[in-house]
């Protein structure tokens, strides 16, 4: 029997919960950006929910004028064998989101990857470097305005 997480979050974090969506038996909670750390800590520690395992964290580019970037958290509860997805939004003008490394230390690398690919800055991540691309690279390749073919001369090649 799945735990009614949405109800729990609504009763406890009324102002933080923006929306709840269900699709193919998967629940997505839309959370206010400022409150994500508190919600995650609650979900991890609550005896009934126990979403103690961060499966994945990733960014996405919705390419809309407002709330352009999304950060998606796929959580898993080892106790209840249940999944939950959280989602927060951020704008291009203010592309800062709180880091959840204090809740799950394993979020460090996925956050680096999201920073590398989308330029989303995770405040509180102590080692926010590029994950895959070279350090000198100036662009964020998974943004929708980055061309598939790449940008000429953006990656320095070794001199002969």
């Amino acid at each position, binding site marked *: 029997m799945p735990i009614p997480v949405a109800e729990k979050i609504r009763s406890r974090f009324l102002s933080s919960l923006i929306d709840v969506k269900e699709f193919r038996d998967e629940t997505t909670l839309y959370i206010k950006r400022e409150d994500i750390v508190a919600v995650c800590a609650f979900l991890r520690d609550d005896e009934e929910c126990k979403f103690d395992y*961060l499966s994945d964290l*990733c960014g996405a580019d919705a390419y809309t004028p407002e709330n352009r970037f999304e950060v998606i958290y796929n959580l898993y509860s*080892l106790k209840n064998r249940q999944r939950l997805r959280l989602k927060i939004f951020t704008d291009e003008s203010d592309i800062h989101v709180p880091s959840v490394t204090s809740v799950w230390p*394993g979020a460090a690398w996925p956050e680096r990857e999201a920073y590398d690919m989308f330029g989303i800055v995770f405040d509180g991540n102590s080692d926010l470097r590029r994950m895959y691309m070279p350090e000198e690279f100036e662009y964020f*390749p*998974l943004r929708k305005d980055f061309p598939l073919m790449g940008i000429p001369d953006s990656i320095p090649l070794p001199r002969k």
Partner: protein
Amino acid sequence: MTTSYEIEPKKSKILHALEDKDTSAQFTDPLENEMILNMGPQHPATHGVLRLLIKLDGETVAAVVPELGYLHRGYEKLAENCSYHEFIPHTDRLDYISPLMNNTAYILAVEKLLGVEAPRRAQFIRVIISELARISSHLLAVGALGLDIGAVTVFMWTFREREKLYDIFEDLTGARFTTSYTRIGGISQDMTDDTRKSIQDFVNRFPANLAECESLLNRNRIFVERTDGVGVITREQAIAMGFSGPNLRGSGVEHDLRRSNPYLVYDELDFEIPVIPDGDCLARYYVRINEMKESLRIVQQALDKIPSGPVQAFEPKKVLPQKERVYTKMEELIHDFMIINFGVNPPAGEVYHAIEGSKGELGFYIQSRGEGHPWRLKIRSPSFMNLQLLPLLLKGRMISDVVAIIGSIDPVMGEADK
């Protein structure tokens, strides 16, 4: 030209992370204790193109910074620009040790998004190929771990077994490495009786051969001493850091997606989940060995229970028609044209589906906007998350333990770098 041993010119953020302060890392005194060793990306024991910067104090590892990205091909960007079918061959190249498993993982996520279910025969075949791929992957992991710490023979013997598996894959899919076997709503071609026989033959012979390989390692004093108690990770750390697969079960967490969230027909099959609480390299090795035996049981049961019937679902607008029919029938020709050119157009929404891959939780997160290609596709690659623990595992160990620990967590860089 300066005569001092300057490692990197001027700024380098990797070195900053290692030193935790502004540094130019110079060694003017040859008796200086601390040195920085650059291991990889071209190093046989890093299983691909993993680069490690290791700060050594004598022979003890003081700090490690892994550097990824040498095999980054941008598959997530590519996925946004190809149709759901076109991405199947790309999944072969993620974890190239067990491509059949990636095919299955990806197609299950797409099918969940589409709301299509494959016929039972196809599901059984997917179970069989996943488990054979798991055996192939674990054989490599065990063999390479042996090779890294000096037991060369076992590597040859496990590769002898893998060769037989590759022959089976070739029979089944037409390719040894890049299989691209699954399709939306089924698989590309049915398993013939000959293939079935050769799988049965493999299942019959494998236990004895595996026992041979084991006999080279289990009581091998060098092997045991170099792995027992090395690279210990506790249960709590493993969960908090997102460890998964055999590595997580080697730390005493009984978590296997085949059991906890059954997909395909795993809930009808009887198998054990090997769990060892020690959390060291030896525990991870034993979990892999025991998992191979369980996989073999699963393959045997699936071979016994496999029903006859179609291997592709009857969903003409979503499932690619068979080639013979495309050439002779009008309807199928139209559907083939539409699916190839415009894609399968799943409804707008997002799904995450994970399977128990050979390295751990292999998940695909797909955002769809109702178009023929994904809006966003994220690969949750187990190797990437497992590698994250390297600094923790290596700190305070000896330099010779580095290769043993890397070998025991079994990373594949094609998957970690995407």
